[in-house]
């Protein structure tokens, strides 16, 4: 086959997980030696598509053709054998082993049943030369920089005679110099007729590197086009262009005095110079892509992570030395992103989960007052409409939406002045989402200052009064949410662009 010929085709791929249609008829093709980018918002189905391509998932419906023959991969191994390799976002380096062994993992050269070290090191030298790397094949891979480790992963694909290398957010932890290096190697791979499927949130990279771009949204491919025929703005429009259902019901609330003030908060290499204020009754949305540093900022504001400089003030009083206990004492509450890991004890009852942060108030001289606990839990089960037969139900048995309500109840019992919710509706069905938004509305009306962190643009725009975009650890823009504000404007700031005007 020669350069530019189509060799991989996927047609109408459908992937169904229990209750979710993650892919709903995706079709696209890959040509020899091209760089084909996949773009889409979080949850659009990119990851699922990659997993289908690499054999990590089996497709539910549709066709997957390599060189015109239909394939059914049952493992990543089978895909690798057919020339489809993937460089994962999470690097899979064995740190205590040599560069050579890392390159030829699962594929070591043998002579008389023993490892042929001479050939191994010679072959490694060869691969390293192709990658422009001047390192000792015997050194431990753990001593390499992240960028070099990533090169090793690409080298691994080369040792397996890959025809297609899929790169999933390869630059997310690379420095600029390392990124440039990666681009050089990509160009070399293309010359050697190896195709690349490139996935990145960074649209400038996508525009720089790609020959063709496919946009995926809601598990469907929206459009495939040549790079020359499109612009960054058009890509963004395609990535988000769906109509917004009116599930937010944002009500106008009187904004009161300043409650939370964050001043020039910085943490080396994580975020810097974060400034913002939240007022009584106000909802401030934080939007940024995964890895932009949103959650890290919130953890620092809450005192769960350290920061190097800056200050956090609640009603004018600086929190110092800052730790979560002090924040809670001053009326801050933080419903974390990962509710199962950080927010809930799945094997305890609803009542225990709700009251766990309030046991002091619900006990006498260290002895828990069962009656008070029950009353408090019942009150919140009713007011937040948690669907459960009883407050003795184990939280692990509840649906995602109801679990989230339990998390909120737990924090609301502390009667917070400031409530931070990180990804409040992740993994929650649409109906419960609307209820969660309703609860946030009610709280704002009662005068709570609320911060909503989300990677869903519609959500932050729907619930917030004010919106702050974060890109690579820095605040790029602050918007008042008005009907005139467009998603394109917000998204471009979250992708590192400067705000208009």
């Amino acid at each position, binding site marked *: 086959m020669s350069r530019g010929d189509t060799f991989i085709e996927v047609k109408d791929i459908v992937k169904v997980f229990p209750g979710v249609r993650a892919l709903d008829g995706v079709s696209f093709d890959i040509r020899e030696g091209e760089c084909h980018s996949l773009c889409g918002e979080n949850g659009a189905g990119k990851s699922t598509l990659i997993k289908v391509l690499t054999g990590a998932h089996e497709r539910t419906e549709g066709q997957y053709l390599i060189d015109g023959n239909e394939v059914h991969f049952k493992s990543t191994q089978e895909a690798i054998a057919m020339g489809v390799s993937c460089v994962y976002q999470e690097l899979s*380096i*064995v740190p*205590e*082993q040599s560069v050579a*062994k890392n390159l030829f*993992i699962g*594929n070591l050269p043998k002579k008389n049943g*023993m*490892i042929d070290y001479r050939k191994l090191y010679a072959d490694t030298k060869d691969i390293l030369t192709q990658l422009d790397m001047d390192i000792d094949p015997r050194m431990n891979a753990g001593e390499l920089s992240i960028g070099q480790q990533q090169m090793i992963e690409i080298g691994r694909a080369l040792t397996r005679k890959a025809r297609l290398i899929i790169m999933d957010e390869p630059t997310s932890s690379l420095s600029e110099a390392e990124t440039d290096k990666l681009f050089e190697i990509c160009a070399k791979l293309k010359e050697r007729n190896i195709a690349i499927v490139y996935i990145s949130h960074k649209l400038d990279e996508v525009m720089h590197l790609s020959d063709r771009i496919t946009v995926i949204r809601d598990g469907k491919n929206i459009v495939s086009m040549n790079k020359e025929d499109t612009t960054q703005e058009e890509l963004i429009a395609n990535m988000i262009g769906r109509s917004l259902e009116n599930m937010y019901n944002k009500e106008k609330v009187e904004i009161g005095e300043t409650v939370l003030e964050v001043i020039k908060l910085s943490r080396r*290499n994580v975020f810097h110079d974060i400034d913002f204020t939240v007022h009584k009754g106000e909802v401030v949305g934080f939007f940024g892509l995964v890895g932009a540093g949103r959650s890290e900022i919130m953890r620092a504001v809450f005192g769960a992570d350290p920061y190097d400089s800056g200050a956090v003030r609640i009603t004018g009083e600086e929190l110092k030395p800052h730790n979560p206990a002090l924040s809670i004492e001053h009326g801050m509450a933080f419903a974390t992103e990962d509710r199962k890991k950080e927010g809930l004890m799945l094997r305890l009852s609803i009542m225990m989960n709700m009251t766990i942060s309030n046991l002091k108030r619900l006990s006498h001289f260290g002895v828990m007052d069962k009656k008070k606990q029950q009353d408090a839990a019942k009150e919140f089960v009713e007011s937040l409409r948690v669907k459960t037969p009883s407050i003795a139900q184990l939280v692990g048995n509840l649906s995602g939406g109801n679990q989230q309500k339990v998390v909120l109840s737990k924090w609301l019992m502390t009667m917070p002045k400031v409530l931070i919710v990180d990804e409040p509706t992740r993994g929650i069905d649409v109906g419960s989402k609307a209820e969660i938004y309703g609860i946030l509305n009610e709280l704002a009306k009662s005068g709570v200052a609320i911060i909503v962190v989300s990677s869903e643009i519609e959500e932050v725009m729907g619930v917030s009064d004010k919106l702050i975009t974060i890109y690579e650890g820095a605040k790029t823009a602050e918007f008042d949410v008005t009907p005139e504000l467009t998603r394109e404007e917000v998204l471009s700031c979250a992708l590192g662009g400067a705000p208009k005007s």
Partner: protein
Amino acid sequence: MKQAEKLPVKEDSKVVKFFKRNNIILILILVYAAAALLASPGLLGGKKNTFFTVSNTYDLLTLVGVYGILAMGLTFVFIVGGIDLSIGYQVAFCAAIFAVMARSGVNVILAMVITLVCGCAVGYLNGTIVTRIGIPPLIGTLAVMTALKGIVYIICPDSLSVGSATLAGNTLSAVYKLGGAITLPVILIVILTVVFTIFLKYTVTGSNFYITGGNFEAGMLSGINPNRLSRIAYTLGGFCSALCGLLLCFRTNTATYNMGDGIDITAICAIVVGGVKMQGGRGNMAMCIMGVAVIQIITNVMNKLHYSTAVVALVTGIVVILVLILDRFTSGRDVLDD
């Protein structure tokens, strides 16, 4: 997020790097010198130095041989990222079934082979429990340990003599001793160290043990079947335990129910001191043997100086902690990074 640019770090020379990674060599020399010195008459020793003698050195080598074999088995398990708490009772179990067979007149060679197969079987059982059923190794092997303890108490309620009058008994004692310095354990450990080292370095299976313990997921994605490799490692562990059990049985011609008490923990301490990583992916047989030597020297010298078992245990514990602290300092980055 941008990766922090690498700060310029002063590069260590190759020699320094080698000793930082293998500080057990220095520790071993240090401990041996300290032991020899402390046991001399001027210091803690009595009329004469009972530690630093030819015959005690032979004894010491034999001890390293017996317990080194056990520790080598555990080293395989550590490299794949597992742990086996049942090795102590594997030793007692294997010794007991060997004694039972030898007493009832089974051919000695056949009895030894059967014992080794039983050891492998128990090791494989451990591996299966951990990899196929998915019980964490700490708990799974603890359960096996408890069960083995029960079995040992049943077949060997007190002690079982192979009988020095029997032909088997005679031969074994003779073989065990051979000529002074060259005892069976010493011969065996030399051979096994060579074989196991080649296995780990030059065979694909052995080499992949490190992948299994170093990055299970990466191994999985590269199609090397880390679960199967884990089972092989546990099986090798069982084999080594059986061998250790046989040696201990040969030494005194008896099997006792409490033969394995404590030697499991000593083996764990020894290989950790040697620098074998408990989290998996790092270690080799040389490290293991040197670690065992350090622990055996400490025990031996203190026995010679007539300290009680309690003091020996206390000192051993302190040494293990000191070595680990030293390890943290020399390999530095591990700690400072979190």
